[in-house]
């Protein structure tokens, strides 16, 4: 083993994007604009091998996501396989395709946790943003079934300009439904959300209100519900440590088997991302050029290279740098020290737009 391979820590979590199929069409969906079709999805034998390799490599948690992971009929077998390997299994779902029987089967297969997303508190705007009639009512019903099944529930509340005014009511709803953990997540501006940024980005005043709402809810729900709050980084002074650093903690597998250091990494040109169908996960983690590309600090330009935060935020998000500057190797423009920070200021000054582009299958 070389010195650098010896120093490389094993990954903590695998994000298994089982499919891009989804009955909903959220305009802030984190999936790429070009979606993978069903015919191109990995088969179950490959997923099982990947999970086995992941556990051997030191992965501790697997998040089954998508798209909508329940759109795969073999989800149950994958959960059972992962649980059998001792992996902590989490299902990230919109819930609309779940019923009592399927939840009981998932619990029986060893599922550890369910994360259910909510688009709003009221039915009309909730259904409208997901472009799915009855989604909101269905989600409430499914949340109750999850809790009745004894499965731990996280409610993921996706917030943006259009629903932030209802955040307090959304948190009340989630707590009332029995969620032990609530995640308040501002839409992150990649993929579909970036295309819709002018219609979704909150104002600073909205954001300050939201901070107060979260603080108040945390005080009320202390000891009962944990609230995690993901702030929109456009308003931050320093960028997020995207994925805790490129190739340091996470492996994301796309429905067709491409291994990515982060779900949006595919947008970066000039990197040949490895396929789990051709290489083992340990080879991918330890020796692929793609995972090494922005790992650590050696790739960094100034001002990151000599910044004392470089091993805290790892220079921010590569995909955001690319999306905003056209160059993935630049300092994340969110950072106030970044030469491109004016781009963020310009986006915040952008006039608000009303129309949304809904997620759908374009040319794939």
């Amino acid at each position: 083993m070389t010195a650098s391979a010896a120093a490389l820590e094993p990954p903590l979590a695998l994000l298994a994007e089982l499919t891009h199929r989804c009955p909903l069409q959220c305009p802030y969906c984190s999936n790429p604009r070009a979606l993978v079709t069903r015919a191109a999805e990995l088969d179950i034998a490959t997923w099982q091998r990947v999970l086995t390799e992941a556990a051997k490599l030191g992965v501790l948690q697997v998040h089954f996501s998508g798209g909508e992971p329940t759109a795969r009929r073999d989800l149950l077998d994958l959960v059972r396989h992962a649980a059998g390997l001792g992996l902590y299994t989490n299902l990230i779902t919109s819930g609309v395709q779940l019923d009592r029987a399927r939840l009981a089967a998932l619990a029986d297969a060893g599922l550890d946790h369910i994360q259910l997303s909510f688009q709003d508190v009221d039915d009309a705007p909730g259904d409208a943003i997901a472009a799915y009639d009855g989604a909101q009512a269905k989600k409430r019903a499914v949340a109750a079934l999850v809790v009745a099944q004894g499965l731990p529930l996280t409610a993921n509340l996706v917030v943006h300009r259009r629903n932030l005014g209802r955040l307090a009511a959304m948190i009340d709803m989630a707590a009332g439904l029995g969620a032990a953990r609530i995640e308040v997540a501002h839409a992150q501006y990649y993929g579909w959300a970036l295309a819709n940024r002018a219609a979704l980005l909150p104002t600073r005043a909205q954001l300050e209100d939201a901070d107060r709402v979260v603080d108040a809810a945390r005080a009320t729900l202390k000891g009962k519900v944990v609230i995690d709050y993901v702030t929109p980084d456009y308003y931050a002074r320093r960028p997020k440590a995207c994925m805790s650093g490129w190739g340091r903690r996470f492996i994301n597998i796309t429905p067709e088997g491409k291994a990515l250091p982060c779900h949006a990494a595919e947008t970066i040109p000039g990197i040949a991302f490895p396929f789990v169908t051709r290489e083992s996960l340990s080879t991918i983690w330890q020796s692929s050029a793609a995972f090494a590309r922005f790992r650590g600090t050696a790739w960094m330009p100034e001002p990151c290279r000599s910044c004392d935060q470089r091993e805290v935020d790892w220079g921010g998000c590569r995909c955001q740098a690319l999306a905003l500057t056209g160059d993935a190797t630049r300092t994340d423009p969110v950072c106030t020290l970044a030469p491109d920070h004016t781009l963020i200021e310009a986006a915040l000054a952008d006039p608000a737009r009303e129309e949304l582009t809904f997620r759908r299958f374009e040319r794939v």
Partner: protein
Amino acid sequence: MTDAAAAPYRFAPGVKFRFDDTRQAWIVLAPERLFMPDEHATEILKLIDGARTADAVIDDLAARFDAPRATIAADVLEMLQDLIDRGVLRR
């Protein structure tokens, strides 16, 4: 202190505590959370079974590490509270 002695501790829903062969370390796994407790917290967590109270945990540790009960009691109570605040334990 009476309150602390009253109810047994258990893991919060969705929280798992297990030994990881790759890292040769005990790990706490929770939704979107994951950490390696230090050795003191690890010894405490190993005793959490839904039946032991704070008193029972302290007795056990005092006996096993041959430490005076009074010396460790405050530390153990503080750590149990910290684990509750972090959403790892419930009572």
